[in-house]
């Protein structure tokens, strides 16, 4: 039996609710994206239901902890194809052992969720540093990035606080998710909006590149170490790593 959801967090929690209510043990909780099916596998379509997902949400907070639900949510943002199923497994264990679940890393399912959570947190921390804004001619600061995980909602709060007196846009170009901040509040969008290219103010970008070169000590060059902290796949959107 496979449960098919719309891929949202609420959808997954609804599926978990249904699994308990129907006393079924689905082998997978998948999202609607095509997945290879072996012949004869039964599929149940799960319709996302706020009330049902809320009940599961509350049960997790009460029987486990607030931290547990946060861990599950961040693991969910990894968008790993197995994440729905793993969340289900995690909840089953958590309902048995309670709040200690977050420390029960000798269990492979718990560890799996823990690892996803760590990866997401790590990427969030990295992007608080390596997100780069370009100042567009209309005065808006625009940051394009391509994170592995769906972290825009997790990083925007930091910039809301820090860059509170300038309008900015954070754009996850891979997913076409935008956080738009107008010096008052942040709005999230999930659709393509055109951003004028080649319109950025270059003066300080040139200065930054110059600084970046001069601050390295020539006798200590260490490209391996540099790549370990700042993997190459992220360089595309880093001003200082572009030659021209």
């Amino acid at each position, binding site marked *: 039996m496979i449960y098919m959801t719309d891929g949202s967090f609420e959808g997954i929690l609804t599926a978990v609710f249904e699994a308990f209510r129907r006393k079924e043990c689905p082998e997978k909780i998948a999202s609607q994206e095509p997945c290879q099916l072996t012949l004869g596998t039964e599929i149940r379509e799960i319709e996302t239901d706020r009330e049902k997902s809320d009940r599961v949400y509350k049960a997790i907070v009460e029987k486990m902890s607030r931290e547990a639900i946060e861990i599950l949510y961040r693991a969910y943002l990894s968008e790993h194809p197995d994440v729905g199923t793993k969340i289900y497994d995690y909840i089953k264990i958590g309902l048995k052992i309670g709040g200690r679940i977050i420390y029960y*890393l000798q269990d492979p399912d718990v560890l799996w969720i823990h690892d996803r959570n760590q990866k997401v947190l790590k990427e969030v921390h990295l992007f608080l540093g390596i997100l780069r804004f370009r100042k567009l001619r209309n005065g808006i600061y625009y940051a394009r990035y391509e994170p592995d995980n769906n972290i825009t909602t997790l990083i925007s709060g930091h910039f809301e606080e820090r860059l509170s007196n300038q309008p900015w846009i954070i754009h996850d170009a891979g997913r076409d998710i935008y956080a738009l901040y107008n010096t008052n509040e942040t709005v999230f969008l999930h659709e393509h909006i055109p951003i004028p290219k080649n319109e950025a103010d270059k003066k300080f970008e040139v200065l930054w590149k110059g600084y970046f070169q001069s601050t390295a000590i020539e006798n200590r*060059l260490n490209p391996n170490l540099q790549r370990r902290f700042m993997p190459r796949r992220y360089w595309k959107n880093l001003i200082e790593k572009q030659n021209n």
Partner: protein
Amino acid sequence: MELLDKLQILADSAKYDVSCSSSGSSRSNKKGQLGNAAPAGICHSWADDGRCISLLKILFTNCCVYDCKYCVNRVTNDVPRAAFTPEELCEITVEFYRRNYIEGLFLSSAVIKSPDYTMELIITALKKLRQEYKFNGYIHVKSIPGADLRLVYQAGLLADRMSINIELPSLQGLKLLAPQKNAESIIKPMAFVKDQIQGANELTIYRKKQLFIPAGQTTQLIVGATQDSDLTILKLTSELYRRYQLKRVYYSAYVPVNDDSNLPSLNTSPPLLREHRIYQADWLLRFYGFEARELLDEGHANFDTKLDPKCDWALRNLGCFPVEINRAPMEMLMRVPGIGYQMAQRIVRARRVAALSYDDLKKMRVVLKRARYFITCKGVYYGGVNIDSEDLYPVLAAQEDPKNVYGQISMFEMGSFAK
């Protein structure tokens, strides 16, 4: 001179100062103003030498009246000189910050005219930045040796962190290589700053919060410019933490920039491995409950290059091992070679849910390469060799991490300590 040239000259002369971290402060944003200081440090980039770039690390000017032998900027060197105006400095800082290039400013300076004159210039720039540009981001300021304490105090009210660099780990070194500086001009402000920090904390209790370098003070020691042993350095370090409550001591492998008979020759490569070992030891002092005298003594005054300091300690204290993973207290687990703070915590928490077997540890991804020789799991020893130093030394020395590239200990790891 073009702004870009100035920036490059003044970044180039500032880069040997190694303290890059921006952690430990929290300055919150006020409506309509720019910036805040995050309690856990954030790296914004990594330079080609693999070091984290967090702060705009820059000199106000590299014009110097002093003649410290180890320094590129000394008066007798023929190098291009430059100086910012306070406006230029503020503008670059703010514009970089708005684009999220940096976490804040690390401002230092060579000694132009006199220490007081230089310190006043720095204060003017910082005031402008805080008051006119409404900048609430992180500022680390380097105090100029010999400056009046009144000026040190003013700078402290504007900055998040202050460093007073010792540079040379012993008095002899200081006399030989920096004749115009004396120990007093370094130690006195350090003690003064410590008292001010305490004073500010006491005042806070019954008055509106007055910020005096909320992220504390730090210093830097140069490794390998003098003959000083690791023991001398580590003893000094632990005194500094104890007596002056420094937040951090930074170490900088000496990069030869000047030809001088009292210094290592120009073709000596910087002692990176030694710097790395000292950083590891410093870590053990601050977070792992070690004392300097446990790690080194007169008969053993320098770290083994083949073993990290914890392994080295463990081999000299095999009587403490093996420890039972299901019973050893956190402090002892942290003393097991190969088990760090995070893994020790993971173990302590997990064993409360269920007793751990060797297999469980593997599943939890505890790295057992070194640890296995020092632990038992449910009473069973998995090391496979005798627990004595003759058998263990070659095994452990051969394991020195080939990936190890001697960077500072990662910021991400640091972040979890800052909490």
